[in-house]
């Protein structure tokens, strides 16, 4: 009964289509040849390229988007990102789908030579063929920009294909993301976004002496060529979000700020360039995945006694108090409580207390605004203090905020302040 109804319905539709095609043969032919699916694919590709933040590396400051030319400094030399606009001579104009897939999935150039892993094909290999094709369709749709970028300056002996071959054998596992069927679809989508397109490992995973990300995925590490520390996304003492709600995670990643934290340095830029454009569904999927990999603190243990502070230490910390009162208290509050969603709290702030003091020192030295996003279009900023107070005063005040209002962290010396200087600008 049901079947016959469907047949009837299908029959009617066919009749209408047939009649319409008799009446308007030209328009029907035009419609069947129109590039609607391609436009759809390009649009999808644009979204995926945002999620993969191709533009972030393949655009120089103030330069043409995707025309490359940005220098990435590493211990192995200086790499200059290539032009990936569809220009025949200087970009990807002569590439086809296969070439692009080979680069993204296998880390090989068009001529088959090995690409340097500064291009995160180690993570992009997880991207599906369908997504890669869409990304390529989008890149093909861009305006070609004729821009020749300077060559890499690779230190000897790393400029060697055989060494790259060895490196790949050891550290590169080719393969599209395989969903874990014991987990939800949402979790798998989040995993794909974090480990594949988003290539979070590129910064948040420690690298060994050969520049390879180690097995301890997303456990935090110094970002190569910058002076920033990308905190662990696992540890509850750093940026692990196992104890946050998905709503709080989504808010931080899509607007750049929430009640507990604010994105700064390279992460603020990632939010501006990439994460704020993700769909609410994808944002939530990322949050679900990140929440699942974040370790939780077990709150059942008996509280331990705080060891008495040696006089030398308390004297050192006391030096930071007047600096704090003069320069920081106005915004971060008498007790480091901050203003929710405007100025981050310092009391209980993991960015302040985590082992590496670099990010906190850098925030004091250089200040900054949280990224301008749709959800936070007019952010409040933090002044740079590099010209205002001396290194020893910065050391005192950072030590002070790391060890007041219940915070506990190592003391910071003026030498550490000096070591945190420097930037890519």
């Amino acid at each position: 009964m049901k079947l016959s109804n469907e047949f009837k319905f299908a029959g009617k539709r066919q009749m209408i289509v047939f009649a319409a095609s008799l009446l308007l043969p030209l328009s029907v032919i035009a419609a069947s040849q129109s590039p609607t699916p391609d436009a759809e694919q390009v649009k999808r590709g644009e979204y995926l390229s945002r999620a993969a933040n191709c533009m972030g590396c393949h655009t120089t400051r103030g330069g043409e988007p995707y025309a490359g030319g940005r220098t990435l400094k590493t211990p192995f030399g200086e790499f200059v990102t290539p032009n990936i606009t569809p220009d025949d001579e200087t970009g990807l104009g002569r590439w086809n789908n296969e070439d692009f897939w080979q680069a993204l999935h296998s880390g090989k150039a068009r001529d088959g030579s090995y690409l340097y892993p500064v291009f995160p094909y180690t993570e992009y290999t997880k991207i599906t063929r369908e997504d890669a094709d869409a990304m390529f369709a989008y890149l093909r749709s861009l305006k070609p920009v004729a821009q020749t970028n300077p060559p890499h300056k690779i230190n000897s002996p790393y400029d060697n294909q055989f060494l790259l071959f060895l490196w790949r054998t050891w550290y590169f596992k080719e393969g599209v993301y395989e969903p874990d069927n014991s987990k939800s679809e949402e979790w798998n989508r989040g995993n794909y976004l974090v480990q594949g397109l988003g290539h979070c490992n590129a910064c948040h995973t420690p690298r060994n002496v050969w520049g390879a990300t180690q097995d301890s995925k997303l456990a935090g590490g110094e970002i190569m060529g910058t002076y920033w520390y990308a905190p662990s996304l696992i540890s509850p003492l750093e940026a692990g979000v196992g104890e946050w709600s998905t709503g709080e995670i989504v808010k931080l990643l899509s607007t750049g700020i929430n009640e507990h934290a604010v994105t700064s340095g390279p992460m603020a830029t990632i939010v501006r360039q990439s994460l704020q454009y993700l769909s609410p569904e994808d944002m939530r999927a990322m949050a679900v995945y990140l929440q699942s990999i974040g370790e939780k603190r077990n709150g059942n243990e008996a509280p331990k006694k705080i060891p008495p502070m040696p006089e030398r230490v308390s004297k050192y910390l006391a030096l930071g108090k007047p600096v704090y009162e003069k320069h920081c208290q106005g915004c971060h509050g008498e007790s480091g409580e901050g203003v929710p969603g405007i100025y981050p709290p310092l009391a209980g702030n993991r960015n302040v207390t985590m082992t590496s003091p670099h990010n906190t020192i850098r925030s004091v030295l250089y200040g900054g605004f949280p990224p301008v996003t749709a959800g936070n279009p007019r952010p409040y900023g933090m002044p740079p203090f590099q010209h205002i107070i001396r290194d020893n005063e910065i050391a005192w005040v950072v030590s002070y905020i790391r060890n007041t209002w219940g915070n506990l962290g190592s003391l910071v010396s003026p030498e550490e302040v000096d070591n945190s200087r420097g930037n890519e600008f």
Partner: protein
Amino acid sequence: MKFIIFILLWTISNLANALEPMPPKISDTLEQRVKPCIICHGDEDRAGRDAYYPRIAGKPAGYLFNQLRNFRDGQRYYQAMAILLENMSDDYLLEIAHYFSFLKYPYPQPTANTLSPGETQAVETLIHSGDPDRDIPACSACHGKALTGTKPFIPSLLGLPHAYLAAQFGGWRNGGIMRGQTPDCMSEIANKMTQEEVNALAMWLPTQPVTGESAEAEELPPELVQRCQTILSGEGFIQ
């Protein structure tokens, strides 16, 4: 060890929460939002700290907007500004530019003129007449008769510290990272002057008291409008 630290942290933070501190009072204003700018560009006396920072209060909005974008996009180089502006939008920068253009701070006291009468006269000639033989226009032709700038894109030359003026001339003359990435008429003009003239200008300008408002755009001579296109184009600027 980490575990012990965490327990300590947890305990202490619970204690701290119990005290319920008074949160800082924050106003929902642009003034509060741009506090990071005021630390260097504010009106307090910074003599003896660092006399480099230029006055931005009351400068024409289009000029401020262009400079903010140039710092952000690497067309004008100053590390502190580049870092602060990295993730700012055009819309927000435009709002900030307007805010500072309307801000009125008292002007600093003019400095004492240490130039010789001959040097002073040479500078004043350059300022008001330029040197047609070398194709150097009068400063006042663009920056206004009172040298207080021309709306909306040309800045005032007065009320600025000597160190800042000298550094800008150096940047224009040497090209390179500070001012030279976008070729503009100021690099071209600065390169037509001698080092002595540039030094004398940077010495003389801070000796002048500030009187009068910015000039109006229609007062600009057409040949200089043509010559200084890059400075006078403010794509996206809304009055």
